[in-house]
């Protein structure tokens, strides 16, 4: 086991240079020594509540908030011997693709500090890439917030089926899409962590019942299982002109490897999801976010001001002072699309389109075990390049990730080759509760790009 003082020293040194943590736990928390996560240091995205540890979801509106309880995933980690190390930087409440939308710390890319980590779980991915000790991070995805930064930073991430992992103690972005999942440097760690955190939780009414759904959670037993007979649908749009050339080359190399072990690879298309995914996602996500953020009013916890003016004036002042501009933008969008005069045209229509997106995935999974596409159309951009993008241009970067998140299907990011010396992440998507297929294929490909 690594010496805790050395771990803290390394953590602080990295953090001083790269801004991966909003809070370092000065006396790392451990409940017991034995378990599946024995000797593992765990970091949590800032939006995951850890009892007594400053938890702000990347927003100063939660300045001074020290939760009185642990999220279920934190409890499960503690029960398996984990050591809690800190809270990782993120876009405010998950609102971003590059982890620059926060009024707390902005993380830098682990291989080139002039570049972004991707977002919104940027701190979790950057820190995972950089540390040398035994470590796993828990991130969160609503529309691609694990696939995106893990792709740009070159680490593994698994966004589970919606409802497989309890959301209790996760600060909400969009309840119908939020999912907690593992970020790590190996598939074995991904599988073990998923075994630990998955399972029904009566504190989360959207949590799936493992028995009723016949969920087999022996994920680590899938490591190294043969891919023989597996059918992979290759997303045709992965090779569009707008996709980085190096990413397309990684895709081609991956397909060659899969074919060499008799995996059936055929071209597929998701025209409906790719056309309607981004507007549908942003309508639903901002609708849900604008109601969720109504709770932050400067009275019960978090940031506050002297009690002056009437309640409308006070709430408006606290919120305006502390919400990041991207949070304000999303609250305004979500409030607009939920207004009585607009609701049917936007929110309700988007919910119906979501049904058709789910159906499009279900149709593909009748014939294929997994879908392969890039996680992102680009490799990690520089800060000054991202600064020039309009909000809409940033939203468009989520082209490959929003639809699986709308459909609630699990997806895995595998670092695979490089483009211009920067990591490339390939994304495998499986049907609901078919995480086993993802672990099998991810573990087979792990390290193949180094041979």
């Amino acid at each position, binding site marked *: 086991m690594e010496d805790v003082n050395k771990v803290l020293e390394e953590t602080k040194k990295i953090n001083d240079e790269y801004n991966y943590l909003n809070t370092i736990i000065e006396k790392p928390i451990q409940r017991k020594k034995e378990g599946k996560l024995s000797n593992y240091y765990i970091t949590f995205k800032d939006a995951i509540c850890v009892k007594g540890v400053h938890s702000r979801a990347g927003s100063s509106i939660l300045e001074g908030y020290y939760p*009185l309880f642990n999220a279920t995933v934190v409890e499960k980690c503690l029960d398996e011997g984990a050591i809690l190390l800190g809270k990782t930087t993120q876009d405010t409440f998950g609102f971003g693709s590059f982890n620059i939308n926060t009024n707390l710390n902005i993380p830098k890319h682990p291989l080139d500090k002039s570049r972004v980590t991707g977002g919104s779980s940027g701190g979790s991915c950057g820190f995972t890439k950089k540390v040398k000790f035994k470590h796993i991070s828990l991130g969160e995805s609503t529309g691609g917030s694990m696939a995106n930064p893990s792709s740009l930073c070159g680490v593994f991430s698994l966004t589970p089926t*919606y*409802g497989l992992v309890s959301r209790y103690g996760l600060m909400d972005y969009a309840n119908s899409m939020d999912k907690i999942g593992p970020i790590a440097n190996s598939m074995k760690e991904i599988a073990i962590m998923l075994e630990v955190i998955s399972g029904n939780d009566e504190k989360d009414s959207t949590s799936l019942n493992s028995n009723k759904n016949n969920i087999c959670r022996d994920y680590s037993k899938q490591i190294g299982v043969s891919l023989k007979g597996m059918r992979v649908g290759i997303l045709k749009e992965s090779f569009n002109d707008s996709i980085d050339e190096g990413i397309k080359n990684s895709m081609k190399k991956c397909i060659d490897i899969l074919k060499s072990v008799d995996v059936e690879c055929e071209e597929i298309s998701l025209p409906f999801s790719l056309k309607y995914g981004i507007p549908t996602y942003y*309508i639903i996500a901002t609708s849900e976010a604008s109601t969720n953020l109504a709770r932050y009013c400067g*009275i019960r916890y978090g940031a506050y001001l002297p009690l002056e003016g*009437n309640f409308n004036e006070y709430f408006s002042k606290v*919120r305006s002072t502390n919400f990041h501009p991207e949070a304000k*933008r999303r609250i305004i969008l979500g409030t607009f699309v939920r207004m009585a005069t607009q609701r049917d045209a936007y929110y309700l229509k988007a919910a*119906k389109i979501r049904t*058709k997106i789910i159906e499009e995935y279900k149709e593909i999974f009748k014939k294929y075990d997994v879908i392969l596409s890039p996680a992102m159309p680009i490799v990690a951009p520089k800060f000054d390049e991202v600064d020039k993008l309009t909000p809409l241009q940033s939203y468009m970067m989520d082209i490959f990730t929003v639809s699986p998140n709308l459909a609630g299907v699990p997806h895995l990011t595998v670092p695979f080759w490089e483009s211009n010396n920067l990591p490339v992440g390939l994304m495998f998507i499986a049907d609901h509760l078919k995480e086993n297929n993802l672990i099998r294929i991810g573990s087979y490909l792990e390290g193949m790009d180094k041979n």
Partner: protein
Amino acid sequence: MEVNEDFVKHIAKVARLELSEEEVKSFVPQLKEILEMFSVIDECDVENVQPSFQPISGEGKLREDIVGECLLQEDVLSLTPHKKDSYFKGPRII
């Protein structure tokens, strides 16, 4: 509905946000661009399609209404300076 400064100010007020003039000015073209992108959904026919408010149907199971361990009043109130006796203290209503 035309997206202009009055539109942004109105929605912000409804959402309990006070925006600076600079924020209002920058939001107008940004929101215009985003709402235009949203309008793509007008092309989609969803007649007879049921909406999905969740991607996978969970149990939707509620806990039994049994008293269990809960947070202590003094702990909850320790998170804010705005309190009096054993209550939260809020801004005036009128």
